């Protein structure tokens, strides 16, 4: 069989064109087979080498092998290009409208008063106060008498009371927790007592139930100045920088006693509906624990003294969310609660 010198350049040209022209991975595979497969052109050439004169075999063999490597490179290059195109096409096809709604259900809502209560607790826990809880149905003794509010004193009228069968009361304030926590304990101690309290007052602007946090500390040299520092820091924690006002007042269980107001954050003191045009918002009461109360808890008032304070939780919640009145918190209207 007569053999001619193979035209390697032509073959290379053709291979290059065919590889570049392969439009898909499938095409590329068949192009590769045409050249490098067992029956491909390059394989034919290699097989034909044996027929060549001896002096040419080595040279042609090298050239054919170089061509084979060259074609493999072109194929690999083309495969990479085709794969990348394929991936991009795939990504393009799976483009989402990310503005459609999220899967899964929306979160629920923590009650605003729970939120405020939690913020308060966080402050006092960090200040070394322990949380103490007491029953909501209380004895007349713990709710009134032990707190220096005897039945025959007009101070009883300061709080409209729900009476419960058995001569019990729905606690009108969290102060009875003072009695429970102090009795049997030896100072020093610091407690807060958050919880719900009840007053016999049901009107559009008032709620018979509201949240309160009581706080008290007893030691040998706790002062009114310490109480002021604590409440300034507390107010700052709850409302940011805020101006406070301490007004002398009367509570049977503290002496001296003070009412605590803060500067209305909505009008900054100019007067608005939130603060009833006074520029101040009543926040709570405070003072130094009355010696009679300490004595009622078997704590020696000659040796120990302490402060106590109590404030409503709703004020904070109402201010935070600019709620116009307290009943919105307790009506259970989801159109309101799910905003907050």
């Amino acid at each position, binding site marked *: 069989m007569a053999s001619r010198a193979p035209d390697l350049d032509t073959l290379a040209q053709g291979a290059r064109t065919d590889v570049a022209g392969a439009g898909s991975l499938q095409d590329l595979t068949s192009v590769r087979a045409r050249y490098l497969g067992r029956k491909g052109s390059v394989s034919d050439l290699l097989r034909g080498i044996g027929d060549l004169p001896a002096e040419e075999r080595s040279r042609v063999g090298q050239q054919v092998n170089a061509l084979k490597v060259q074609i493999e490179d072109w194929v690999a290059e083309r495969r990479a290009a085709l794969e990348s195109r394929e991936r991009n096409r795939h990504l393009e096809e799976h483009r989402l409208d990310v503005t459609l709604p999220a899967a899964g259900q929306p979160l629920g809502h923590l009650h605003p008063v729970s939120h405020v209560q939690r913020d308060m607790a966080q402050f006092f826990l960090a200040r070394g106060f322990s949380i103490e809880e007491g029953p909501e149905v209380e004895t007349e003794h713990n709710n009134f008498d032990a707190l220096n509010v005897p039945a*025959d004193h007009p101070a009883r009228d300061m709080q409209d009371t*729900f009476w419960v069968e058995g001569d019990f009361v729905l606690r009108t304030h969290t102060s009875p927790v003072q009695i429970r926590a102090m009795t049997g304990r030896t100072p020093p101690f610091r407690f807060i007592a958050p919880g719900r309290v009840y007053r016999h007052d049901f009107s559009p602007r008032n709620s018979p139930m509201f949240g309160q946090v009581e706080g008290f500390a007893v030691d040998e040299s706790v002062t009114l100045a310490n109480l002021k520092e604590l409440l300034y820091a507390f107010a700052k924690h709850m409302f940011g920088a805020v101006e406070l006002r301490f007004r002398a007042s009367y509570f049977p269980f503290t002496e001296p006693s003070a009412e605590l107001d803060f500067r209305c954050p909505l009008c900054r003191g100019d007067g608005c509906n939130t603060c009833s045009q006074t520029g101040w918002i009543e926040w709570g009461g405070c003072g130094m624990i009355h010696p009679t109360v300490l004595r009622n808890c078997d704590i020696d008032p000659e040796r120990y003294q302490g402060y106590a304070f109590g404030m409503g939780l709703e004020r904070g919640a109402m201010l935070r969310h600019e709620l116009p009145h307290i009943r919105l918190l307790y009506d259970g209207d989801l159109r309101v609660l799910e905003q907050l």
Partner: protein
Amino acid sequence: MLVPLSWLADWIELPDSVEALAESLTGGGLEVDAIERTGPDLSALVVGDVVEHGPHPNADRLSVCRVDAGDDEPFEVVCGAPNVAAGQKIAFARVGTRLPDGTRLKKSRIRSVTSMGMICSERELGLGDEHEGILVLDTDAPAGTPLADVLSAGETILEIAITANRGDCASILGIAREVRAHFGAAVRVPTCDPPEGERAVAEDLRVEITDPEGCHRYDARVVRGVRVGPSPNWMQQRLEAAGMRPINVVVDVTNYVMLELGQPLHAFDLDRLRGGVIRVRSAEAGERMTTLDGVERTLDPSDLLITDGGGPVAVAGVIGGGDSEVSDATTNLLIESAHFRPGRVRLTAKRLGVQTDASYRFERGVDRAGVTRAADRAARLIAELAGGEVSRGVATATGSTPDGVDEIALAPARVNGLLGTALSRDEIEAYLARVGVEPATESESESGGGGRHGDEPGRYAIPSHRNDLRIAEDLIEEVARIHGLDRIPATVQVGPLVGGGAPRSWTDAERARDTLWAEGVTEVMCFPFLDPRDLDRLDLAESDPRRATLGVVNPIAESHSQLRSTLLPSLLGLLRENRNRQIDRVRIFEVSRVFRVEKEGELPEEDLCVAAVLTRSDQNRLWEAKTEAAPPLFFEAKGIALRLVSALGYRAELRPGAPQPYQHPGASAGIRVGRRVVGEVGELHPDAAARFAIDVPCAVIELSLSALADVPRQEKRFREVSRHPQMQRDLAVLVDRDQRAGELVDAIRRKGGDHLASVEVFDRYEGQGVPEGKVSLAFRLVFQRVDRTLTDGEVTKSVDQVVKMLANQFGGELR
């Protein structure tokens, strides 16, 4: 208390600014709730000078004036008043100003002369009816001065909230003393002594106290020959400004003096008193009398009575009797001024449901040294205003000594030690002096008076009207409030850090809240009350412990008459209300206490509970809708309940048990932790839903955090993780339709032994291909050991054993 400022000004010099006065009183503990101004608004008017006065060219009865109102040019004004004259000071309204009647003054042409303002009459100023002539001012004020500065019109009234300890402030005198404490001016007490006639009081009357515990002192003055008519205008105006209705001169004087001095008084018609005696005694059981409000009242031995020779004439300190009331026909009077024990008056007033201006003051305690002075002052005013002659002397009797102290010991160190201040002894004593507390003199005190030096305790004399000052701390409060609470420093408390923890009930409640709101449930807070009919709506058995509710003695409404023994009715009520608000999907929870009577006469048990009510949305949302049919609502509730218990640190199982009467019997289960049932999950029974008027399927979760807290919490312990591969086998078994998958899972777990790492149900199917009455349950079994790799043969053997067991025990047939 309503305090007319002009009245207060008679008693003490006031600061120029009412606002400054109010601020000081408020800061010192007498909260000024409101400053009310009555009378016409004169703020737009000014003082004018009539500089020229001449006839009107076209009208005989009119004149034309030029009025200087302090502006650059005088105004030309037409005036019809006959009394206008040059040189007068008058009340002037410029064109455009608002007159006291609310109208705006317009420029007008009167018979071709333009009038640029108005010279006002009394009527135009709203001060009276005089309109024939203009009001000529008696003032030196220059033209242009605001009219309100020179003409006192109306009254400024302070509305003051008096704290329960400061009965002494329920009077003009008391408020004046507080003004003195803040501003230092002297209090001017008017003359009280009456001019006395010849006739001695003893000729008409003697006074006896037979219940000395209830009555500290009783004074009576007699005035004879009065003419009872209306009181003078000035007195009526003051009473009205202070919120009292004028009646007649006698009653008005007793009220007036009570408002002045804080001592309640009562006037009797002397001629209608029998037997010439006033006896103060306690009532007999069942004794009756008709009080001056026309009500016949049954009395109690705890009530203190004023009686005459015939019977009760007044309930002491509370209300008078109708028979001895002063009328227009009265000529001879008895004026009572007494001091009753505060607690007794309070109990009677409470029992009778009557609060009067008198009982209000007696409850808080009156000046123990002011009784006679008030009787004197009233007698003097009556003699002055109603004629008559005051009998000589006071009929008086004394009972027990009133509560209160004469002296209190106080050391400066105690003041500073409690307040955290550094006040000197002199400063402290100066503040005390402002409230009338002076160092006790040596003669009054064995241990030496105040005014000592250094840190020795001093003794301080307490004024008779301050019955609230009993102990050293009371004096410290006086120092603090006059010094000013705002001037007390704020210093950090120094001491050992003790505590800083929260009880389990607190942390559990917090964790429950966090879990539930993250589960898409919204927290609500409900009142603790229960409508007793709700227990019927829940269909609770008579023996159900939740029937043992505690009643509210004075409920706001019948629907709030019990304390909650379950949270469900509140939540179901809110579900209904929110559905009525067109809210489609309602998912709410509450963490709150329920009350349970455990033992009669003891405080109820308070269990901390969580309850949630869930509905499903009618409108499927975009994603969940199309993929697969949502599982029954029960399973959503089950998932939430299990995750809730898990968040609280327990493993719970849901086991069907005895359904609650309000639960769907086929879709409910108890939440079991260990061996205890701590809650319930279930769909609401359609009958219960109907009784609560709920129009949508809903599921309910109930969990007692208190019950859970009784179960010891197991710490989660490490189990070794296997390095060996796991092998998974799926089994589908046909069993009876009623067969519970949970029982099969338990049986498989037991049978699988050490080889079986886990088993779970992944499908439940009935329908085509499954025989009637059967169900196909599919289980995924995962085999894996910690110590070695299982062989295929071992796993196959285990599976075979499981299959055999399912066939034998449950009639299970492999599909």
